């Protein structure tokens, strides 16, 4: 059977996300308990976590998490890495032997910054430089796969149920201010660790439940901007679209959400003249970036996360709030498991994003409350 990346595999899933908006760090136990509640939504063929704020000692370094099939792949990757980056620390990611996680690849992490002279020569900024590096490794070195490349954050994923994955990676020993989790139900058995969620590029991580009917349109649009979609997963495409909109086109997160779940033309016609111009332009320019088909997803970036549904809400998503803690999950049970008495629990409407960011001086209000449901 073809490995994921050579064939498209639709999947169903469970997702969960927790953030402490004050930036206080908490262990991976809560997110593990939350996602474990939705055990039945996955089938043991993929689970994973994204943790933000876990590497404060190396917060200025890119933290590369890499799977290797063999030592040759490792050697080749490290040759390229060390030719281009100053590596402050390299180590095996600590794991615990468990009965449920089998066939583990070699799993390493590196804290590294680009060599100044290489960066200068490339005429890129360090983010672009790093994206190129990641794409290069993932598409050109067989058996090597960089699955996490942000700063002060890390992705941990495997083939297995999410709670077993957490146990395997000893997540209870990490402390972060924001956590995402994913349990996967793919419709066949690829058994490839890279195919599990979250999907990550730089500081953007995505967990996703759904199937993008617009996948090929989105993918081809992204390829025009130099993105290489190696995995053939919807999540990868979603992550790159957010990277394009947020980082490269500088859109505020609220507007990026209105691109991937755009208001209908009928709704645009009813808007104020100023909004009408804005949304007409957005829809005309970014029509091919619309994520079409059923999905609920959580996109994390360094400031927080946004949880969003497709615009006609074809997948479940629930949100809750207690003090400075914001919870989102596929099912309410997964929230109540770790937050006994939430102040409020609500089901966001289709295309209506839940934006949860670290508390800063100026809060953005205008677009987070906008009605966009059909």
């Amino acid at each position, binding site marked *: 059977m073809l490995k994921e990346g050579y064939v498209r595999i639709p999947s169903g899933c469970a997702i969960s996300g927790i953030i402490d908006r004050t930036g206080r760090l908490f262990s991976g136990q809560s997110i593990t308990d939350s996602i474990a509640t939705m055990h039945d939504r996955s089938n043991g063929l993929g689970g994973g976590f994204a943790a933000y704020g876990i590497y404060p000692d190396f917060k200025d370094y890119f933290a590369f998490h890499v799977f290797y099939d063999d030592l040759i792949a490792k050697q080749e990757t490290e040759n390229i890495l060390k030719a281009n980056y100053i590596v402050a620390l390299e180590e095996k990611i600590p794991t615990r032997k468990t009965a449920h996680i089998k066939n583990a690849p070699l799993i390493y992490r590196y804290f590294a910054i680009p060599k100044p002279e290489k960066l200068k020569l490339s005429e890129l900024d360090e983010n672009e430089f790093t994206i190129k590096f990641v794409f290069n490794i993932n598409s050109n070195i067989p058996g090597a796969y960089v699955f996490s490349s942000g700063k002060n954050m890390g992705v941990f994923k495997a083939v297995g149920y999410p709670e077993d994955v957490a146990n395997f990676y000893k997540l209870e020993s990490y402390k972060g201010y924001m956590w995402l989790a994913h349990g996967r139900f793919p419709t066949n058995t690829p058994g490839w660790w890279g195919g599990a969620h979250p999907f990550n590029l730089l500081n953007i991580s995505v967990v996703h439940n759904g199937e993008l009917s617009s996948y090929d349109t989105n993918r081809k649009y992204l390829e025009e901007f130099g993105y290489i979609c190696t995995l053939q997963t919807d999540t990868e495409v979603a992550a790159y679209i957010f990277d394009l909109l947020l980082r490269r086109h500088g859109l505020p997160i609220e507007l990026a959400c209105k691109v991937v779940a755009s208001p209908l*033309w009928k709704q645009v016609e009813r808007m104020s003249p100023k909004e009408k111009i804005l949304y007409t332009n957005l829809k*005309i*320019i970014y029509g091919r970036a619309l994520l*079409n088909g059923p999905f609920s997803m959580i996109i994390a970036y360094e400031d927080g996360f946004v949880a969003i549904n497709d615009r006609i809400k074809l997948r479940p998503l629930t949100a809750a709030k207690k003090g400075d803690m914001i919870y989102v999950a596929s099912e309410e049970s997964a929230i109540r498991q770790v937050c006994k008495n939430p102040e409020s629990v609500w089901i966001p409407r289709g295309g209506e994003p839940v934006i949860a960011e670290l508390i800063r001086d100026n809060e953005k209000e205008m677009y987070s409350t906008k009605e966009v449901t059909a």
Partner: protein
Amino acid sequence: MSLSYLTPEFKVLRDYDKCINCKVCMRQCSFEVHSYDEHLDKMISNDMNCVNCQRCVVLCPTQALTIIKHPQTFKEHANWTYDAIRDIYRQAETGGVLLSSMGNDRPYPVYWDKIVINASQVTNPSIDPLREPMELRVYIGRKPDKIEIDENLNVKTKMPPQLKLETPIMFSAMSYGSISYNAHAALARAAEELGILYNTGEGGLHKDFRKYGKNTIVQVASGRFGVDREYLNTAAAIEIKIGQGAKPGIGGHLPGEKVSEDISATRMIPPGSDAISPAPHHDIYSIEDLAQLIYSLKEATDYQKPVGVKIAAVNNVAAIASGIARAGADYIAIDGFRGGTGAAPKRIRDNVGIPIEFAIAAVDARLRSEGIRHTISLVAAGSIRNSADIVKAIALGADAVYIATAALIALGCHMCQKCHTGKCNWGIATQDPNLVKRLNPEIGYKRLVNLVQAWSHEIKEMLGGMGINDIESLKGNRLMLRGIGMTQKELDILGILAAGE
């Protein structure tokens, strides 16, 4: 005159038990097939003249008429076919180029029919367009790479002019001259009602139709007929016609006898003079000349209107399209080798050009590889026969399609391929006032509206089946297609997988 070796192509079968001698058939046939014989007290038919347009069949009040392919055959020969032999007789008699009309009728593979469409099952819910929103609106024009906004969310991007289509279908170019005034009236009115556009073709814009300007694309072709400042500024968009799928590489010729007072005024040429469109534009011998014309037209219209370029699908179409995109066109229309025509040399119609399916796939892939696909619009033309063809064209990479033959069929065309004779019995491809009045624009526009609405409904159903609720998400979505009965090479060019993969 010596004996003609040609025998009738069709045979009129008249059921005399049903014929009431009402002479409706006789009055309706512009080819003078039917007549009344006093001595016999019977209607009789001259099969030799029959073109099988079926006007008489449809109007006969007692269904007494049937037209069949004439049973007369030659000795069977796989190489020297009926058409091959008859074409030689014709040319030996006349010494002329064989003329024909409408699109290529040879049995080349129709690739649309080798492509099937996906639908959702279990992992992805299909969407019912009767209950859920479904968006078909598209914008044709040049798109910026990204949106620019200030801190107060004011849009700073200067959006180039766009054509808004409520459904991704436009009526393709057909000139006044090649088709009748009433046909134009029906097309223009239908375009307005549907929120789409029709295209004047190269024959100018009749003053009566200026009121439909916002639904009109005007053409600037090699003959420059009817082009002046008012013409350009009346329209919603301007299209430079380089070529046509039915006759790539050659021009056009409207004989002087068809240039009536009205057509002369519309084309801005003297009445009775031949209207000749040269094969190339004599001010465009290279791509940089095209860029000059594009910008001349933009200057003339103050950069308020999209300027598109229409080309025939030929071998090197991808590279040509890329050049057009870089020359500043807002959209590119590509016309496949099955595209229709009011008159074309038969050999060219049947042998020059490539199928639109390959052309669209190749152009889309080329523009994507250059990273400029999202900046320009692509319109596919050249035999779109139904809504499924449209879905496939858009999934292969088009933004919208042009339909012309289908529109004419909706108006009554029976595909007899005799447009070039000017005797169209359905009042479409004729300037004969006796025949033009047979096309009632009041009826015609409703039939066009019905057709496009029916197709739009079907497109919505197919989109819903795929789990898509916006036509934008179908553009270039080739994973939604699979091929049947094609070689690997053909699949690769189309960029689709085989069924089962």
